[in-house]
């Protein structure tokens, strides 16, 4: 329990750091970005949103930095992330709310499949070192160095097309209205196959490699030799003795690597024009929509923190030592 509380404290601290970072970044902008934005959106910005822009960029000279900071926190607790320029006059929270489920489903499910598959193959490659499984290594090396989005471009080029099964862009058929019915869901799944495959291929290799190396290291431990000497079936030694111990660093690595993975998968969404956070982020960047960009960054960070928390729970279940201390 103590371990768990410690982790919770750490995540709260990280969330605080991310929000504070988010508060300070717009204040680094040289010059008066609000004026250039007003010029860009001639007449489209209401006086209220201009005022909130000045607050956002910290150009409101009437207030001290500290009061601005406190106000920023108040806003966040109300779920108010400002107004988006690109989707004016929709508030940022609403834009993100529409995009988030797409990303969570696509990236979440694919990452879990990739981790499970990669770890399984890694166990095999580490245990059967010197067999055909070693042939996986050069292939995985290649795929782990390819940028996700380039693989996505290639996938569209080679597999998608007007008369192919795989659609090349979007998250669902444009004739359909999002709903939980028998028309929409198959269409959404069909559209997510190619992006999912792209993410899977480029992310699975990392897991194979790290699991293989851990397996090789663990395999030479004394307790493995003992298990062999006791005459336990090979399967049991491999899975319950070696793999279980080799998995621990992999799980904690999984949690920490999520931040990196998310970065790559956002790009896949962009290539496939998938209606998730990554694609929204691209639109925000193109339009210099600072409130939206920051909102997305905040949501991604919080999502990664939640995923980390889940990985911690998994770790607690896998490693009895962490449970004993509390």
């Amino acid at each position, binding site marked *: 329990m103590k371990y768990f509380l410690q982790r919770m404290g750490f995540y709260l601290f990280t969330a605080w750091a991310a929000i504070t970072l988010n508060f300070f970044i717009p204040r680094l902008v040289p010059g008066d970005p609000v004026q250039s934005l007003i010029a860009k959106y001639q007449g489209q910005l209401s006086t209220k949103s201009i005022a909130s822009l000045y607050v956002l960029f910290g150009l409101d000279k009437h207030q001290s930095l500290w009061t601005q900071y406190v106000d920023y926190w108040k806003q966040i607790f109300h779920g108010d992330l400002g107004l988006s320029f690109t989707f004016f006059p929709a508030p940022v929270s609403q834009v993100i709310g529409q995009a988030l489920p797409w990303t969570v489903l696509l990236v979440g499910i694919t990452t879990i499949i990739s981790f499970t598959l990669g770890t399984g193959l890694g166990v095999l490659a580490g245990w059967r070192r010197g*067999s055909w499984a070693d042939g996986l290594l050069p292939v995985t*090396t290649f795929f782990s*160095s390819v940028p996700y*989005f380039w693989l996505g471009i290639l996938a569209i*080029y080679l597999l998608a097309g007007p008369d192919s099964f795989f659609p090349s862009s979007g998250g669902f058929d444009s004739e359909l209205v999002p709903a939980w019915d028998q028309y929409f869901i198959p269409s959404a799944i069909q559209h997510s196959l190619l992006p999912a495959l792209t993410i899977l291929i480029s992310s699975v290799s990392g897991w194979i490699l790290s699991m293989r190396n851990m397996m090789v290291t663990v395999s*030479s431990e004394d307790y493995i030799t003992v298990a062999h000497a006791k005459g336990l079936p090979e399967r049991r030694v491999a899975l319950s003795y070696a793999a279980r111990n080799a998995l621990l660093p992999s799980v904690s690595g999984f949690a920490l690597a999520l931040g*990196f993975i998310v970065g790559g998968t956002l790009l896949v969404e962009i290539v496939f024009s998938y209606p998730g956070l990554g694609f929204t982020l691209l639109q925000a960047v193109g339009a210099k929509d600072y409130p939206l*960009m920051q909102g997305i960054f905040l949501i991604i960070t919080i999502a990664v923190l939640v995923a980390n928390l889940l990985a911690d729970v998994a770790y607690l279940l896998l490693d009895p030592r962490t449970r004993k201390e509390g």
Partner: protein
Amino acid sequence: MKSFLRNGKATAGLAILGVYLLFAIIGPWIAPYDPSARGNDLVKGPSAAHWLGTTHLGQDVLSQLLVGTRSVVYVGFLAAIIATVLSVLVGVAAGYLGGKTDDTLSVFTNVVLVIPAVPLMIIITSTLNDVSDTLIAVIIGLTCWSWNARVLRAQTLSLRRRDFVEAARASGERTWRIIGFELLPNLTAVIASGFVGTVIFAVLSEITLAFIGVVNNGWNWGTILFWAQGQQALGQDAWWWFVPAGLAIAVLGMALALINFGIDEFVSPRLRSAGKTKLRTARGRTVRMRIGFTPVLGGAPPPAKEPALAGEAK
């Protein structure tokens, strides 16, 4: 060093990396055209005049690729140098000093590690206008040092209690001397492999930033992909526009990964892919060698008759 170079993977990786470094230096001089100069051949496939075809403005793709190499290599290495210096400072200090310092530095490292780096970079670079290559490298370097710091801290912790460090401390050597002359030489391999890994990450990050268009000054491979994506290269079947840049990234990444394998296997020989582990015994049974032994040479058949420890009759 010699035995490191005898490793096939490492030599292959270093050779490929050498080619890239060469092009980074001479690329802009040998490029046949000005990469931004417009021509009359729009979106034409490879030909004698344009080996890798042309873009929607008639620009020469090969020239863009050659000129772009410098920016990619420069940003990759500069960012990796910054990140490595930071990670050594933070990681070794945390691991060696211990106590409160360790706690503070560890929490700091983990916070940086957990915050998603790529979205953060996107926000910072798009907030600042007109970022130069050097500034990009600094931003990337500042956001991606944490993984290596973590690895270095763990490694330092395990070194700290070794006899030779204890001896140095007992004989009254100063802390900076212990760190500089006892610890760092023993961490060289870890630092080197972290450096190489960071170069890959930095290159991918720079290309990502250029690809989504937040950085758009000068040419690098990401810029090429940005235009290819934006100008519907896919719809026009213009494979020569986006395939070479991606391959260049992939091959560079693979070269660096190979160097890293070389380092890993140099440090811990057990990770080498073993030669054949299936062999026939004198009695004609097939025996599969098992884990727990260290393959040293590919050719020599390892001893097969050690039941339960090394080999198992099947």
